[in-house]
């Protein structure tokens, strides 16, 4: 056996280095891969719990409608009826929990409408879009349009 190994000893040393590197890799992997990785997919299962534990920012339109049923009624039949309140007014869960604690700021009608309605060749033609340099008198959109029911009748 010794004779057989004698001229292969350097190869055995190299093999030990490779094996050592493999073991080191497996140890590093065991330490670095977080618990629960791969349970539900290619991610750490604990991430779901972490995300669920974040405080809610948005109250949801149901909560808005509980108090502001007049606005809900005014949006009926409008093209904006299905848009969530907080899409324009921002996250308001704190306000929904305690209306006195936080008062929502009225959105700037000069910029917020353009978020969707600024003219762009890649938008479908049927979607209302304007070039602010050509449309209107430079004032806020709300001077002519009611944001809750924007059609001009």
């Amino acid at each position: 056996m010794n004779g057989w190994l004698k001229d292969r000893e350097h190869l055995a040393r190299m093999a030990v280095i490779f094996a050592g590197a493999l073991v080191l890799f497996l140890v590093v992997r065991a330490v670095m891969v977080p618990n629960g990785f791969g349970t539900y997919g290619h991610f750490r299962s604990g991430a779901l719990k972490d995300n669920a534990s974040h405080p809610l920012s948005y109250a949801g339109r149901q909560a808005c409608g509980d108090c502001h049923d007049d606005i809900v009624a005014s949006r009926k039949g409008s093209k904006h009826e299905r848009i969530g309140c907080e899409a324009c007014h921002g996250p308001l869960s704190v306000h929904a929990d305690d209306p006195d604690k936080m008062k929502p700021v009225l959105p700037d009608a000069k910029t917020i409408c353009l978020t969707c309605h600024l003219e762009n060749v890649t938008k479908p033609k049927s979607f209302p879009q304007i070039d602010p340099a050509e449309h209107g008198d430079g004032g806020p959109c709300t001077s002519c349009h009611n944001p809750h029911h924007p059609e001009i009748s």
Partner: protein
Amino acid sequence: MESLLHSVQGFIYPDELQLQWSILIVLYPFITGLVAGAFILASLERVFNVEAVKPTYRLALLTALAFMIVAPLPLQLHLGHPERSFEMYLTPHTTSAMAMFGFVYLWYLMAVLVLEIWLDFRKDIVLTARASKGAKRALYRAMALWSDNISERSLRIDDKVGKFITIVGIPSAFLLHGYVGFIFGSVKANPWWSSPLMPVVFIFSAMVSGIALVMLMYQAVNWYRKTAVQMSCLDTIARYLLYAFIIDFSLEMLDLVHRIYEADESFKTLDFMVHTKLYFSQIILQIFVGTLVPIGLLALVQLVSVRERARRIIYGASGVLTLVGIFAMRWNVVIGGQLFSKSLLGYTTYKMGFATREGLLPALILLLLPFAILYLLVKLLPPWPEGDLARKE
């Protein structure tokens, strides 16, 4: 945004305006191709016992290693956060071809190139360790894994193991570069890329570029060291280059003819692109200057007898043109595939920065870096024949 819109023709989708894959992604298949090609040339000598190319064997291996070390750098520079690439090994995403590259790369680098180079240079390493003192001796002893055994039997065993690794290495080299072609060929949303011929074309173009590089390196090294070039070696490499080139060109033409004959819905768009935006890089650089001219030059040497000095010039010129042509091919694949809209109704333009993260300057640095690494490798492991080295000392 406004200035970018001037570079657009027709209709394109918003996310097609700027190219996501830059010149760095052009470099990546170019460099891996050089690695695979250089290795395949080295393997020819080893497996098929082609004596004539023996003088380039060790140089080709070191060249392959130098370029292999640089191969992932363009990707890491392009993506940013290079430290995250290690995650690929920790939590491998087995359904992603790109993610599996880490393993293909590691296998090829460690199990093939490093092992083969170590086995081939082991005798030199041990002899250098014996003849040196101090830190140099410690370094070479460590490289020899503190083994001093260079008995005839041990070297014979090394040779056998080395040959086995080379045999495993050839499919590995094909896998390495075939896989790069596979990544492009499997993007079914892109008609410029999506072709089952892509991996095969990439493998043969890799062989062409690698052989051309080794041919140039062999001449350059001999010129630098003021030693004589073995013309039989150079002639053989040039002949291999010609054969590989003919197969590569035939495959590319097969792909082209197939596209023209099939003429699917994307054909008009791609055809227009080749005649306008890609005219210079594809028709002039890739096909004419980088393929037909070198094939013609190399074939000329086969057909008529050319004097030695003229042959050397012809080989040098065709080697440089070949590398230009293969680089242009990578450019046309990577950049060309992003110039037209998925709507097939419009085109955009690639604007390359200079001293930006993905600009021309980092690309040039990455292209020169393998030569700096090769310089160090050659200092560490001189690939010249032992007798030659002994004569010099």
